[in-house]
């Protein structure tokens, strides 16, 4: 039986999700995370960089050199292999919850019909 996963904090999850679509700098990560959460995630500079620091510490993202035409003051980040598997595990966990709720007819779409 697979080890039960601790849910990722929303900011961490959406940062990993945003980086799954490509390498980005801080502001682009923030914009993408907001877009992916349908503007529901209120993420500010302190939350963003605290989460980034924790993800760097745990090796789930890495700092990379920016593009040649990019702003040299910006730092760019990339999702690593452990980061990708962390994101996939979280998505599987969410999917399992939706599956269970559908089986129990508790899912909003199921209960409406």
């Amino acid at each position, binding site marked *: 039986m697979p080890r039960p*996963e*601790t*849910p*990722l*904090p929303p*900011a*961490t999850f959406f940062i990993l999700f945003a980086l799954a679509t490509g390498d980005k700098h*801080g*502001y682009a990560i*923030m914009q993408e995370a907001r877009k992916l959460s349908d503007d529901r995630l*209120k*993420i*500010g*500079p*302190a*939350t*963003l*960089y*605290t*989460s*980034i*620091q*924790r993800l760097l510490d*745990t090796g789930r993202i890495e700092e990379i050199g920016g593009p040649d035409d990019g702003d040299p*003051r*910006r*730092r760019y980040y990339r999702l690593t292999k452990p980061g990708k598997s*962390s994101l996939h595990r979280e998505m599987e966990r969410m999917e399992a919850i939706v599956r269970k709720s559908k089986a129990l007819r508790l899912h909003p779409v199921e209960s409406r019909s």
Partner: protein
Amino acid sequence: MTGALTLSSRIYCRLLDFYPEDLRRKFGAEMAGLFAEDLDAARREAGVLGVIRVWRCALSEFLRFALPSCASRPAVRVPAISCGLFIALMSGEMALRQASHAPTLPQAAFTALWLPMFTTPFIALAAVWTCRSRAVISLGLSGSTEKDD
């Protein structure tokens, strides 16, 4: 409006001084830049309401990250406890005096108690002011409220 945005960015830079030192040292410039960029984008998108939204988010982060970090500094905790004790003592003394309609403590004893309590916060604040530019304590990312797996 540009003046207001510049002022907002300056205020945010001042607030950054209260954030955990590690976070500020590594990402301070980027946090300030990101705030300014976000503020400008929000103003273009939603006007004053956008600016308010960005500030509301920044202030809620200030409460979650900066205040716990400040509270862990002895230079802030000592005056705060001292002020609290002083206020509690004064309130207690006043309440007792009103209840009994008579002085409760001899003047000398009361002075001996409240004088150190009254002066300690000012001494501590003076010490903080004197040492404000020296990084004495590394605070780490103690302001975070999120726990990772």
